[in-house]
């Protein structure tokens, strides 16, 4: 049977549609402040009261964060359509440590990755000759420095914080992976993993067009925003309560930069907790508004999203408990350093 290929559809409607979508987005975004003021004025609450402040915060922040998140997730969806784990693996195979760690961490940001794929990815990388430490750099960066975290930090705290987070997050992934590589812990993998000597599959070239990439962006909006929006709303509601009610002096004394022990405490509390960046950042924002130190709050956020119990349980299939302990220990130490550093930089 012969397969007749249709001429590719014109990309123009897609590009035009994207442009129109961006214009609508900009129009909505410019109306956020009038909208929240108007909405609060409809309610029988004094805007200056605690309750009024909490509601204004909620009504302004929720649409703002959702809009910015949608834009960032869409853009990242398009960018990621240029990458795949297989291609990333081919780029990393046989790389020396150092350069390899830096490449792996950077590729971790743009390579599409889902935590249910963590084990196939791990085996696929290691068995194809990607060094263990380089694989870890990828696995640390991929969840920690992601578009949701960066987009939300940018939306709520500005580009300086987002950029610093990006640089320090990459730094942790690079150094932690490099350290794990230097420790030569290959023998701490589960024995069956080492026996696999898989080749690398030759995937047929699929012609990816611009409409495909735009569709990939829309799909990731549907998937990611669809999955995390209620976390964000819950997070902002919590943030609004803190914003309106929590006493300033209390938080500043517990989480302020004078309390050095608050950074390790934040990491210890954060590691067993699991949430995605979306749920945690609005809380982060509100805590900061009340005098908590940035480094402490970010250390908390990093340990919640980069180290999580469900991921450990999945990775236990390929890693021995000892190796998981080293992984957690090294990453947590990196987060600790970043927390202290942030508190120094943004004092």
């Amino acid at each position, binding site marked *: 049977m012969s397969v007749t290929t249709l001429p590719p559809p014109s990309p123009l409607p897609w590009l035009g549609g994207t442009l129109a979508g961006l214009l609508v987005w900009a129009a909505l975004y410019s109306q956020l402040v009038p909208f929240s003021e108007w909405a609060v004025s409809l309610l029988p609450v004094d805007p200056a009261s605690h309750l009024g402040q909490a509601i204004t915060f909620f009504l302004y922040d929720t649409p703002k964060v959702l809009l910015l998140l949608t834009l960032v997730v869409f853009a990242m969806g398009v960018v990621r359509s240029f990458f795949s784990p297989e291609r990333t693996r081919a780029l990393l195979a046989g790389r020396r440590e150092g350069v390899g760690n830096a490449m792996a961490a950077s590729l971790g940001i743009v390579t599409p990755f889902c935590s249910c794929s963590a084990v196939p*990815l791990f085996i696929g990388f290691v068995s194809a000759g990607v060094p263990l430490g380089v694989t870890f750099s990828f696995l640390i960066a991929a969840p920690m420095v992601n578009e949701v975290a960066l987009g939300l930090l940018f939306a709520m705290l500005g580009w300086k914080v987002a950029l610093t987070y990006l640089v320090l997050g990459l730094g942790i992934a690079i150094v932690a992976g490099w350290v794990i590589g230097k420790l030569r812990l290959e023998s701490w993998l589960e024995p069956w993993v080492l*026996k*696999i000597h*898989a080749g690398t*599959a030759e995937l047929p070239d699929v012609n990816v067009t611009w409409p495909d990439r735009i569709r990939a962006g829309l799909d990731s909006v549907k998937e990611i925003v669809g999955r995390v929006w209620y976390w964000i709303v819950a997070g902002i509601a919590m943030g609004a309560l803190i914003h309106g009610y929590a006493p300033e002096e209390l938080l500043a004394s517990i989480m302020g930069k004078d309390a050095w022990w608050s950074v390790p405490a934040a990491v210890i509390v954060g590691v067993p907790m699991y949430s995605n960046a979306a749920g945690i950042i609005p809380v982060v924002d509100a805590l900061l508004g009340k005098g908590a130190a940035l480094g402490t709050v970010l250390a908390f956020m990093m340990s919640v999203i980069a180290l999580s119990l469900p991921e450990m349980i999945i990775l236990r299939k390929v890693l021995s408990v000892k190796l998981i302990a080293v992984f957690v220990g090294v990453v947590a130490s990196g987060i600790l350093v970043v927390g202290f550093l942030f508190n120094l930089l943004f004092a």
Partner: protein
Amino acid sequence: MKNVKVLGPGCKRCDAAVQMVRDAAAQAGVEVTIEKVTDYAEIAGYGIASTPGLVVDGKVVHAGGLPKAADIARWIAA
């Protein structure tokens, strides 16, 4: 008769991929046997690094994310 293997540890997308293959086969009127491969070692043996993966008659045709319906139709045809 085509043999299609869906490689994946059993996440939601892997089940969705199985259903897509089934639908595509029914639509094209092609007879296929569908096998789910959930064993990590076996999945890795096919040389992919992301799931779900699709193997048609022993040849890897797709890895990572849901395939497009049109592509599945092409792979199982002829």
